[in-house]
């Protein structure tokens, strides 16, 4: 029993990590008043760049860097459209999703001629699992041993990084000058403006941070969890991350728990699939596959109530109406 729980939770961590990065990315963006439907596209773009660079330079770190760069570039396109040009942020996000979906495959094909995939990465060019100190020695200690050795130890560095990013995000948002200003532009940009702050600059900075975090998320997919880029490999994670963000009511620690919840639902769906449910018998696999989505709707409807986003989010800051 404990084993099963540990295994499901272990899988939960792996599945939550890309969501968590993306969710924190969305948090920075939306806290500053920029709605970002384009998380998905940024993750995808980053995953491609990371895998391509990791392959070419034979280093996961360079891959990560490349992923971040590409993701930030896409973020800047979104920033330009929604901050400088005051365009519709949702449309801009949709465009970025399409753009990443097309360009990754197009360039992948042009560079590697493998149908838009990048060549498979060897273990040395990926982020590999890290065994934490004493994991092996402690493994035999009852209860805590397996939890430490199997659950806590043995993930790759990006998994740890994603969870470390949670307190960091909290600290930045609630304890630093930058965080205060960021929250202010997201709630009332005019107030920030009259306090002598540049709304534009602040929002661009938030957008860039959003890009960086999506870069981590994408790199995790292609050079840590996976071993190379495959078309459409983000598979809707950006959207799920957005859902998680609303669930979390735009708070970092909540974000962690909701991402874990989503990861857990997914892991559970995987675990339960194909098993007979006592008293019901065989259930079509599609039921389990739809389970995370159904539960999301149920939870949204039943438990979290009305989530109130940062007041200015989605609204371009326009001083002068014409």
């Amino acid at each position, binding site marked *: 029993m404990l084993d099963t729980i540990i*295994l499901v939770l272990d899988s939960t961590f792996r599945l939550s990590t890309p969501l968590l990065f993306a969710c924190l990315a969305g948090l920075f963006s939306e806290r500053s008043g920029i709605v970002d439907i384009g998380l998905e596209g940024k993750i995808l773009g980053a995953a491609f760049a990371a895998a391509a660079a990791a392959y070419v330079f034979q280093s996961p770190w360079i891959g990560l860097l490349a992923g971040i760069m590409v993701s930030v570039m896409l973020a800047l396109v979104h920033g330009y459209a929604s901050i400088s040009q005051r365009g519709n942020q949702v449309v801009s996000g949709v465009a970025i999703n399409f753009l990443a979906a097309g360009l990754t495959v197009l360039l992948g094909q042009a560079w590697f001629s493998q149908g838009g995939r990048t060549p498979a990465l060897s273990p040395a060019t990926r982020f590999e699992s890290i065994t934490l100190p004493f994991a092996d020695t402690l493994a035999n200690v009852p209860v805590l041993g397996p939890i430490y050795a199997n659950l806590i130890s043995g993930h790759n560095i990006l998994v740890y990084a994603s969870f470390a990013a949670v307190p960091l995000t909290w600290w930045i948002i609630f304890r630093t000058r930058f965080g205060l200003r960021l929250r202010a532009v997201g709630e009332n940009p005019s107030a920030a403006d009259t306090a002598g702050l540049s709304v534009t600059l602040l929002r661009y900075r938030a957008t860039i941070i959003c890009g960086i975090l999506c870069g981590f998320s994408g790199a995790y997919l292609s050079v840590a969890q996976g071993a190379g880029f495959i*078309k459409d490999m983000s598979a809707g994670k950006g959207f799920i991350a957005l859902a998680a963000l609303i669930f979390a009511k735009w708070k970092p620690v909540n974000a962690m728990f909701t991402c874990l919840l989503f990861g857990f639902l997914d892991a559970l769906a995987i675990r339960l699939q194909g098993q007979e449910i006592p008293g019901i018998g065989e259930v079509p696999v599609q039921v389990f596959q739809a389970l995370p989505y159904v539960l999301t709707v149920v939870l949204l409807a039943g438990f979290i109530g009305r989530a109130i986003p940062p007041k200015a989010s989605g609204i371009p800051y326009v001083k002068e109406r014409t």
Partner: protein
Amino acid sequence: ETFKPAVVYDFGGRNDRSFNEAAYKGALQFEERTGIKFRDFEIQNPSQREQALRNFARRGLDPIITIGFAQAAALEKVAKEFPDTHFAIVDSVVDLPNVRSIVFKEGEGSFLVGLLAAMSTESDTIGFVGGMDIPLIRKFACGYKQGAKYAKPDIEIIENMTGTTGAAWTDPLKGGELARSQFARGADVVFHAAGLTGTGVLQAAADEGKLGIGVDSNQNHLHPGSVLTSMIKAVDVAVDKTLTDAKEGKWTSGVEVLGLAENGVSWSYDEYNKPLITAEMQSAVEQAKMDIISGKVEVHDYMVDSSCPF
């Protein structure tokens, strides 16, 4: 040059590392051997199936090979419009005088790899990861289960499907997670029939020190020592042969069923998985193969009654 062949792939496209890619390879082999160039097209939405076939036929390309069961309906229409053009379809039957239908007995090949899986498992638990839950994949699964039970009647088989959208075929991360979950539940050999998703399954097996089984083309080389074998579906051979037949005037229409006997399906054995296959396993699988060909062992075809008794 009047001989102008064409290939139309289904969703997934030319480079799906699996089924469509095998067809592409077959056409390439033909091209390399004969120097005859071929045209091809990757469809993007269902409406383009018909359009692509018609476009090729209208431009005088002949023969035209369509890949995948999903193209059957489109082919049926277009083949009637162009009775003088030769068409072939892989994985489905279209009963028209100018169409060659090529189908495989996936069940037979899966039977063999199921048997091998059963013989090499130490935990008496093996796994199967499919892409989408559709009849074709159940056909794979059914043969696999039958083969495994043939070797070890009370073996446990964990069966999972990846998803319900097109992404089910292209989600190696989910594939990896499914495989990991099966390993966690005791499986130590996992067979995938999930296209690109399967690369994640094999990757997970390699990462966890377990065994994977490849599908469609020989995937043994992907992770030497971690891929027990591959269930080869000789789409490439079939495509090459169809083109060659057409070129040499040996075209026949009608249904071609490729099973073990025709070498349409087989299991792979090469330097990459040599250490994994014991002599005992080898003789057992060859024996089973002969028994299937001779009819002594009958492999259940899921498509006949849409159910799997195993």
